[in-house]
């Protein structure tokens, strides 16, 4: 009963692949749309002192709503669709993405922004070419946390039928059969680790200046 049924695995390679891809098709759009929403909000929070508390506070409050409740609340609006799963997870990424982007922008040396404006860059160009690149390491730290968190949270959406690898949990629970549950846990873990590694690589490629940390020759 509790032992792993190894024979299950070869029979379900196709299922596992489908579910893994399904898992990704929920997690990736969730994090990406989280970024699309978080970046402008963070820029506003960074620029406008008065709105900073409001934006950060609101994203905190959203984070405290239990995930399951979210899907229930969203159901009347978006229905039983993949969109509901993605929307719910997107909202969860906001708190960490907004907070890290604001922190990242705060960490940009004032003299760099100052110099950019004084050289004749307009504010938007300064934001895109100086501030965001310099904030990238801190933003990426947020993206990594958000990604890993989202990958593990996707399974909750199996409640509404879009849980990716979470389907394996439901399946296992319903049949009191642990093997699919363990497979789901392992695959989710693997996926999270893999996604994190990809993000580390992306960050490495995007921040060539951070590679040479030794001073002088």
């Amino acid at each position, binding site marked *: 009963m509790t032992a792993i049924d190894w024979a299950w695995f070869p029979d379900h390679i196709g299922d596992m692949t489908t579910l893994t891809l399904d898992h990704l098709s929920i997690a990736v759009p969730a994090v990406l749309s989280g970024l699309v929403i978080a970046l402008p909000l963070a820029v506003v929070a960074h620029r406008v002192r008065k709105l900073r508390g409001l934006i950060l506070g609101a994203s905190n409050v959203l984070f405290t709503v239990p995930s399951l409740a979210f899907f229930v609340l969203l159901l009347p609006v978006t229905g039983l669709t993949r969109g509901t799963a993605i929307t719910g997870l997107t909202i969860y990424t906001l708190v960490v993405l907004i907070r890290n982007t604001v922190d990242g922008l705060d960490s940009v040396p004032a003299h*760099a922004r100052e*110099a950019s404006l004084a050289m*004749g*860059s*307009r504010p938007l160009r300064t934001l895109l070419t100086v501030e965001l*690149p310099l904030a990238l390491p801190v933003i990426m730290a947020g993206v990594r946390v958000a990604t890993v968190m989202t990958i593990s949270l996707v399974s909750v959406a199996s409640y509404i039928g879009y849980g990716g690898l979470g389907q394996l949990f439901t399946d296992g629970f319903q049949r009191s059969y642990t093997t699919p549950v363990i497979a789901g846990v392992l695959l989710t873990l693997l996926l999270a680790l893999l996604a994190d590694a990809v993000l580390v690589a992306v960050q490495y490629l995007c921040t060539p200046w951070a590679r*040479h*940390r030794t001073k002088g020759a």
Partner: protein
Amino acid sequence: MQSGKGHRMISFDAVSKHYPNGTTAVDDLTLELPEGGLTVLVGSSGCGKTTTLRMINRMVEPSSGTVRVAGRDVRDSDAAELRRSIGYVIQQSGLFPHRTVLDNVATVPLLLGWGRQKSRSRAAELLERVGLDAGSAKRYPHQLSGGQQQRVGVARALAADPPVLLMDEPFGAVDPVVRTQLQDELLRLQRDLRKTVVFVTHDIDEAVRLGDRIAVFRTGGRLVQCAPPAQLLTRPADDFVAGFLGAERGLKLLSLTTLGEAAVPHTPASPVRTDEPVSGIRTDGGTRTDGGKETGPGTDGRWRIAVAPDGRPVGWLDTEALPTGGTAGDADLLPLRPLHDEDSLLAALDESLTSPARAVARVHGDGVLAGVTGRAALHERAALHHAAAAMEAEPAGDESHLDRQDSADTGARTAEAGA
């Protein structure tokens, strides 16, 4: 005396800057900065000098009054475009940490739409100009020393060949030796480029060293006096300026003039070659420091200049403490600083104080000993020079320190030197 380059490049007309919290950063400033001159804004912190600088490129907008660059109200220009035509070097270099040195320097050319290739080749040219090797181009700013970073900062500011260069305490964060080098290089660059430079510092020595003209600000954003260094030093407008210049005003003035400009004479020396055997050195007939006029210690021939076989002086030889054998080079020589005609009167005076012979060794451009100048002769020259500078600088009456700005041209420094 009247400047040939009379054009005023930058002008402040009754400019004030007040902040909402009630502080006044700049108070009713009227000032004109001539084209091609290096004007230093100096004062203690909070005196409005940086605010003044930043109003030129609209990093700060004045509360009232008009700032003009090349005759044009800066408010009539788009701020970003205006800034591309004004070089700016800030404290701590302000380089972009995420861009290579080359791309940092190429910033403004890229903004101006020169294209990547042209911008980069221009950047490489400038790096060479400020004395950085090609290998540094591909590095990131944090891989360079503080002095190198400042050079990159200067190269970046000059990249698009702007007529105006603003420098906000650019050398404040580097050690004194590097600072002196950077100052020398700025002067060298400025001799070639003749930009209109506005330089902010709180260091009066730096101001005297660099400035064609120095504008002294007082706390509360008031300009107290703007004049060439020699005039400032000989005729400070009030006690505040005098106090700011410090007790060594006279010495600072001497730092402005070279031995060559002051035509300080020297007399032939009778040096000892370091490869001469000590047995052949007589203790008389040594260095007479003032054509024989001067008597007393140091001119009695005890001290002679030891020169290397190529004629360069290497130290003072005490003929009363010669080694028992060997050559003059084996003796314990006292240090000697050879003085070129390009060295300042101050450097010569300093050397004369430490020289055991009460005289300084003068050398030709190639470093070969030319002769000696005695301490007394040097003092006399320095006093004459000081008097001449004071005469040259017109009396600074009530308002005249402001009215005089047109005639206080950038060449005044050399004019006085020649007097």
